[in-house]
């Protein structure tokens, strides 16, 4: 980390630290709420008797609110964190609530990142022990308080479903004892349950999502819904090309629009401030701006493809090598060569990018769906020239992300603070990106190309070479040092360098190219393209070798038990060997590990007039201990639908540097009539839990390609499969 993302150690939150318990656990630290309503319901907000610790607040009404250090934008961390706490606390599920923790990199850091942030399918993975310890410590403190109050030995007290009991007949809920529990010392190393005693973790039907009701009746609050008094809506006119700057502008016509309050030049373009979205948008369209494109990216994707192709003919920087691929190719055998091309993809979360801030001069208070609060917090403070302790940042629900809100560049935080600064203190501002702004605003999944070569001899794959051409996501970011090795970005090749198959002669190399288009991680990051390239290609080689796609893969996976485990599980679930398919239908399979979660999928499809129609997908997942089985299923279902929509339709082409697709008419999204049936099997495991937000995505595309091959069609080598289709 550079100074830019130095932790905000001096915030009001950490200064109040009263007690500290064992490693990874900071319990009983008073969380100053600075007037921000923290609770989701009125009852808890009114409670005075809150248990003042870092991760949970116990209300007088017995509610237990878990402060979630991860953003909830669909993948279920509110429910997941609350499950872990409730399990060890022996709470009743109906008393559990969740809310976002405020920005504080000391208290709320992701234990895998070292700063506060959500990503890499890491929420459960990094919090599993930490949040259980929080629950266990709080339970011990409540029990100690009860023992003190009732004058009985703590060992004789039991806790079940939120009720603290003693054989004498004495009993209490959590709320009545919370204040007294706070006076108890926090245990340094609270005893955790043996998994055999779990009542919630891994139990079907034991918990329901904490956010379903509010998200079904319109009451869940997102950034777009913020309506603090006096809030101005801000739209920024940005360069149509990446890297373009404002040369000059005329705002006369725009200023005349009723409802427009001001128009200012900001570093990214020209900002329109108005009372509401519509006047802001109307005025923005009337701005006359001349752009200076002298430093802008002006290449289109057709030109990039030619350049990438030319590079791929030569070997790139070596990522991994075993044996001698070139010598093996020279020996003869069946040489198979395939090129795969992957387009720029927008994340297009349902809620386009937005953010809110109220800069009051000496202090500032920001609220939005920040996925990386620590760097965002520092960026806001820096732009406004404030000590970070004077800036509050509160994460709130966001309408999806798929990676889009995890900005190592902090570009939204910077723009938010810049528009606030430009109009001056005392004006709350809500920065809103339109759908078109979001779609054409960059930060795409990188455009990538894989040139694959393989040799099959005597029914075996004896050589494998993968030359990748792509852009780095991490170069120039604060995470560069963490994720780049020998100047190469591991997110460009992850999954291609470590394939799960034993091939004696193996090479993976990378041409890391600079393009002036901002790129970003996109749900499953490198695996979005490496998963497709590896799994479509291995299937092609196995076909040439005359082997069954499942048996052939398993034969090369002797040292990959978890890959083999999900592959066997999905083959069984789908009855891979025995199923009799309807005429015109075929099946394909793929298996991809990402973020230490193993997923195999079988796709059954037929060809319609316009392309593949996917009827059913079987999915097996091994994510270690399955904390919330139903959320795991939901993430597999959602990941499959997300992947299918993109491999069928999605691309962001550039023409002379300008992104073409602007909305869901030109960037087609999967709709309900195209959603396959899905069956998910969770492979039982006692390994440490890993994440599920992303790993459902990568196997779907290659499984579709491999099913198409079974129908005698070529595996699609350039995505999307139906590039001309718009909605």
């Amino acid at each position, binding site marked *: 980390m550079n100074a830019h993302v130095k932790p905000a150690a001096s915030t009001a939150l950490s200064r109040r630290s009263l007690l500290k318990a064992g490693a990874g656990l900071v319990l009983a630290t008073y969380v100053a709420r600075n007037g921000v309503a923290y609770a989701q319901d009125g009852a808890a907000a009114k409670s005075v008797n809150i248990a003042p610790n870092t991760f949970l607040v116990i209300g007088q009404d017995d509610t237990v609110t878990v402060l979630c250090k991860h953003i909830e934008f669909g993948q279920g961390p509110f429910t997941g964190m609350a499950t872990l706490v409730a399990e060890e606390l022996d709470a009743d599920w109906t008393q559990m609530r969740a809310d976002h923790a405020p920005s504080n990199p000391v208290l709320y850091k992701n234990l895998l990142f070292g700063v506060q942030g959500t990503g890499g399918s890491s929420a459960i993975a990094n919090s599993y022990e930490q949040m259980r310890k929080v629950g266990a410590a709080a339970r011990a403190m409540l029990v100690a308080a009860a023992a003190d109050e009732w004058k009985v030995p703590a060992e004789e007290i039991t806790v079940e479903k939120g009720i603290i009991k003693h054989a004498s007949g004495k009993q209490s809920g959590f709320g009545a004892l919370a204040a007294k529990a706070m006076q108890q010392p926090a245990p340094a190393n609270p005893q955790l349950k043996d998994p055999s005693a779990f009542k919630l973790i891994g139990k079907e039907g034991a918990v329901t999502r904490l956010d379903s009701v509010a*998200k079904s009746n319109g009451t869940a609050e997102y950034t*777009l819904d913020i309506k603090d008094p006096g809030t101005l809506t801000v739209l920024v006119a940005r360069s149509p090309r990446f890297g373009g700057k404002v040369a000059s502008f005329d705002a006369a016509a725009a200023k005349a629009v*009723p409802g427009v309050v001001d128009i200012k030049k900001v570093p990214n373009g020209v900002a329109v401030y108005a009372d509401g*979205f519509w006047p802001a948008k109307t005025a923005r369209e009337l701005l006359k701006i001349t752009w200076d494109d002298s430093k802008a990216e002006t290449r289109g994707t057709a030109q990039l493809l030619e350049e990438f192709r030319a590079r791929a003919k030569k070997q790139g920087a070596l990522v991994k090598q075993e044996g001698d691929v070139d010598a093996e190719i020279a020996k003869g055998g069946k040489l198979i060569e395939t090129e795969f091309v992957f387009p720029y993809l927008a994340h297009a*979360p*349902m809620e386009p990018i937005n953010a809110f801030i109220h800069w009051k001069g000496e202090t500032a208070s920001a609220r939005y769906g920040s996925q990386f609060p620590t760097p965002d917090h520092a960026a806001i403070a820096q732009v406004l020239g404030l000590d970070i302790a004077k800036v509050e940042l509160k994460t709130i629900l966001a*309408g999806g992300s798929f990676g889009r809100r995890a900005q190592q560049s902090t570009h939204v935080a910077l723009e938010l603070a810049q528009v606030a600064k430009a109009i001056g203190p005392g004006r709350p501002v809500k920065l809103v990106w339109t759908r078109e702004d979001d779609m054409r605003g960059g930060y795409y999944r990188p455009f990538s190309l894989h040139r694959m070569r393989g040799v099959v001899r005597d029914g075996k794959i004896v050589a494998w070479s993968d030359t990748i051409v792509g852009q780095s996501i991490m170069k120039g970011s604060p995470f560069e040092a963490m994720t780049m090795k020998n100047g190469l970005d591991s997110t460009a090749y992850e999954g291609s360098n470590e394939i799960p198959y034993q091939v004696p002669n193996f090479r993976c190399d990378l041409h890391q190219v600079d393009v002036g288009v901002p790129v970003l991680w996109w749900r499953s990051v490198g695996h979005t393209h490496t998963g497709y390239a590896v799994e479509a290609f291995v299937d092609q080689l196995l076909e040439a070798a005359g082997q069954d796609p499942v048996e052939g893969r398993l034969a090369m996976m002797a040292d990959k038990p978890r890959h083999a485990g999900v592959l066997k599980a999905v083959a069984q679930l789908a009855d891979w060997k025995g199923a009799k398919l309807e005429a015109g239908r075929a099946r394909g399979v793929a298996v991809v590990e990402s973020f230490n979660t193993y997923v195999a999928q079988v796709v059954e499809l037929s060809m319609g007039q316009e392309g593949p129609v996917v009827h059913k997908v079987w999915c097996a997942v091994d994510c270690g201990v399955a904390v919330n089985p139903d*959320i795991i299923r939901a993430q597999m279902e*959602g990941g499959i*639908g997300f992947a299918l929509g993109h491999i069928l339709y999605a691309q962001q082409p550039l023409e002379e540097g300008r992104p073409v697709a602007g909305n869901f008419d030109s960037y087609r999204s999967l709709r309900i009539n195209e959603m396959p049936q899905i069956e998910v099997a969770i492979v039982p495991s006692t390994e440490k839990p890993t994440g599920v937000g992303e790993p459902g995505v990568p196997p779907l595309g290659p499984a579709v390609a491999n099913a198409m091959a079974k129908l005698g069609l070529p595996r699609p080598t350039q995505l999307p499969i139906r590039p001309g289709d718009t909605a």
Partner: protein
Amino acid sequence: MAAFTLKINGREHQIDVDPGTPLLWAIRDNVGLTGTKYGCGVAQCGACTVYVDGQTVRSCSLPVSAVGKSEVTTIEGLTSKEAVAVQKAWAAHDVPQCGYCQSGQVMSAAALLGLNPKPTDQDIDLAMNGNICRCATYVRIRAAIHSAAKSLEG
């Protein structure tokens, strides 16, 4: 700018806006009801679905000047037995992920059940394919609509 009286969820609201202002932004920014969402602005995603005289409408693409005396219903004013059944089923199936599109999904689903108490999968596809869910919660939307239909049978 012009004055309009919008009847939303049974209440009248006087607003003064440009006549071309889409109903969506009048509802959100002028009336202050934020359950109805902005997702695309071009009637592609359905996040802004409301009822105008009982018919589902994409409020992002309907100018305020075209609403007239029609009755507008938003997610906040949804009280029909179909709506209650849909919202219960949504929670029972844990349909929402990010949740941002779900006001629109619930509006469309409740309207479907009002017209067709026992929809088939195909009926659901036809009625719901104007509502995009980027989290792709479609499997559960379908299951929840069937559950809601079943709960209304009794």
